[in-house]
């Protein structure tokens, strides 16, 4: 199997982006490079095992030892439910990692080794499991909600990806976009230059004040490259909301990209690099609040992992934009008009179920006076759009992703709501892609844009000539 493997060296970085299809990623590769670096199998394995045993701390070890093989997690997973293929049972996606832990670091590792009771995990197995822990897991954590032992399977998959990344076993597209992010500052070509050009164009086109690189600001605003490249109106909406609320705010060309494909790929170094850019930018402008964009995993990366990357508590408050909206609407700093339509809300898994901010978008929708129509499974038990965890970037996962999306379409349709909104641009592009694939006659919208379109008072629309305010 190793003979046929094609590896990509660091010199080969030519993975052109596809920025025209409903889902942004690198172009569908003619030849896949799902292994990185020119290394021997034993070297890969040693790297993977070292990362696994380092990562499997107290909680992870507890979870790896606790599975009773009841199979309930399958019943929570959109990939299993829509394929009925047992290999998509969430805990099975961790099988080699469970075995590696038990053999290398578990309580009876010495016994297993002495008896030869558990066989060593092979690179071939890790390659096989790559398709399960990267293609068939969106890290949505719905399985955690059903496990009678309370095992947090999504956390374990995230940790397993670290070992895979160390071993150079990341799927082609996910590696390519995260490498690009580490190199250029954005996975999708939204370099500082592109960002500034876009902001200038958007400010002019929409007559809205944009602030870039102000030396000092209360609020540092960040974006997802999906917004920058695909949903530029979200940038405009962000600016309108900030201006309306009357904050001194800025975008930093040194730290604007909130997506973190390094985290999704399992590359801790790249994850830290992306996070530190924003943290440094926030510290530089003495921001009191960092507002994260409509992006699910960006919330996990900064809100819950940012301080751990810095090595000390963050010297600023971190808010997802839906939390920022909810707080400012509650305090009266943002005033909104009534929407008067029915809305179905799609919860981004990383913000709601795994982020704890389930209530914020609901408070915002309530303030907008919409009739909120919840799906059968909503809030913390919401079904994932199928595109989280880097899955949407991966062409190899398209088939199962579309299958999983059927659950979402059916539940959304069943609400009969006039429109759909979410607060994650990655979910949104996943819906766009599903919409195009199934020729679905519904379109996913943005909570932030809905608010920006319904701001009360003159700040709602650009009243005077606006321009990009750029620091000298």
């Amino acid at each position, binding site marked *: 199997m190793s003979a046929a493997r094609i590896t990509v060296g660091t010199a080969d970085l030519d993975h052109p982006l596809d920025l025209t299809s409903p889902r942004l990623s690198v172009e569908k590769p003619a030849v896949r490079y799902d292994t990185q670096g020119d290394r021997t199998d034993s070297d890969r394995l040693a790297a993977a095992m070292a990362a696994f045993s380092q990562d*499997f*701390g107290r*909680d992870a070890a507890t979870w790896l030892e606790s599975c009773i*093989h*009841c199979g309930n997690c399958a019943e929570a997973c959109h990939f299993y439910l829509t394929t009925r293929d047992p290999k998509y049972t969430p805990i099975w996606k961790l099988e080699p990692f469970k075995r590696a832990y038990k053999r290398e670091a578990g*309580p009876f590792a010495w016994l297993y080794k002495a008896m030869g009771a558990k066989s060593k995990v092979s690179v071939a197995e890790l390659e096989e499991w790559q398709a399960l822990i990267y293609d068939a897991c969106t890290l949505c954590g719905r399985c955690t909600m059903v496990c*009678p032992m309370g095992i947090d399977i999504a956390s374990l998959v995230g940790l397993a990806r670290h070992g895979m990344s160390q071993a150079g076993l990341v799927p082609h597209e996910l590696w390519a976009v995260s490498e690009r992010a580490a190199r250029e500052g954005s996975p999708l070509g939204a370099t500082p230059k592109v960002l500034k050009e876009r902001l200038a164009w958007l400010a002019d086109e929409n007559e809205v004040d944009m602030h870039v690189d102000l030396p000092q600001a209360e609020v540092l605003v960040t974006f997802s490259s999906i917004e920058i490249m695909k949903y530029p109106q979200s940038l405009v909406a962000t600016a309108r909301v900030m201006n309306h609320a009357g904050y001194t705010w800025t975008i930093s060309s040194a730290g604007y990209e909130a997506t973190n494909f390094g985290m999704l790929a399992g590359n801790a170094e790249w994850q830290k690099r992306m996070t530190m850019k924003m943290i440094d930018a926030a510290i530089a402008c003495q921001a009191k609040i960092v507002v994260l964009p409509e992006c699910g995993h960006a919330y996990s990366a900064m809100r819950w992992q940012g301080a751990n990357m810095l090595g000390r508590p*963050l010297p600023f408050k971190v808010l997802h934009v839906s939390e920022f909206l909810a707080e400012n609407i509650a305090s009266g700093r943002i005033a909104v008009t009534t929407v008067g339509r029915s809305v179905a809300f799609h919860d981004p898994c990383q913000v*709601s179920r795994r982020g704890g901010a389930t209530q914020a978008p609901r408070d915002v929708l309530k303030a907008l006076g919409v009739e909120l129509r919840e799906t059968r499974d909503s809030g913390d038990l919401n079904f994932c759009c199928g595109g989280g965890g880097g899955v949407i970037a991966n062409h190899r996962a398209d088939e199962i992703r579309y299958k999983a999306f059927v659950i979402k379409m059916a539940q959304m349709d069943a609400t009969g709501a006039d429109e759909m909104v979410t607060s994650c641009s990655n979910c949104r592009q996943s819906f766009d892609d599903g919409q195009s694939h199934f020729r679905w006659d519904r379109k996913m919208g943005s909570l932030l844009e809905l608010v920006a379109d319904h701001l009360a008072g003159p700040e709602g629309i650009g009243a005077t000539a606006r321009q990009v305010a750029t620091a000298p």
Partner: protein
Amino acid sequence: MDSLTLLAFARGPMLVIAIAVFVLGILWRLFHLLWRPSKPDLSEPRSTAVVRGALGAIVTRMWHHKTFRERTLAGTLNAYAYHIGLAIVFFGFVPHIAFIERLTGLSWPAVPGWLFATAVAAVFVGLVYALMVRLTSPVLRLLSDFDDYASWVITILPMITGMAVLSLALDSPYPAQPLYPAPLAIHLLSVELLLIWLPFGKLSHAFLVFISRGATGAAFARKGASL
């Protein structure tokens, strides 16, 4: 070896060994888990009520969310049936209480005969049903390994060997001299096998369940997320 010697062995040295392995095995696993590194989480907690979160998860995870009911109800009810059944059989049967009293001095009232008989039935039916599901469900067949089947056998063995000793009326007092020393010795040895196996295999979920649920409950509470 005659049957009385075997019984003496099962009641004496073997019991001591079994209990020692049981206790030391569990302690070793707990120690091993606590000894694993645990990095402090520096993120700003949404809630500091992590202990409540941990205890809450231990309690709430005793029942499934409504949305999963359709798919997990049968398995959950069955698991309750044989777990409660096992507890009643082990702690509520007259000879078992007498056995424990002789070892520890502790004693409590026995359950009525009809309840004991119901519990025995629940354990047998429940365990057989669980095995059937394990053998027929594609998901469970894929997940299952030696540990699952060995644990099943080791759990049902004391039930089977116990039936062979059931020669008295269920409510009758515990006899001073066992009527059938050999079957009783075998019954005891099968229980000792269970004690020895428990810390090593999946039966360790008996204590891991609290730690695992608690860890997730605490982590989720910290994030302000519900489980």
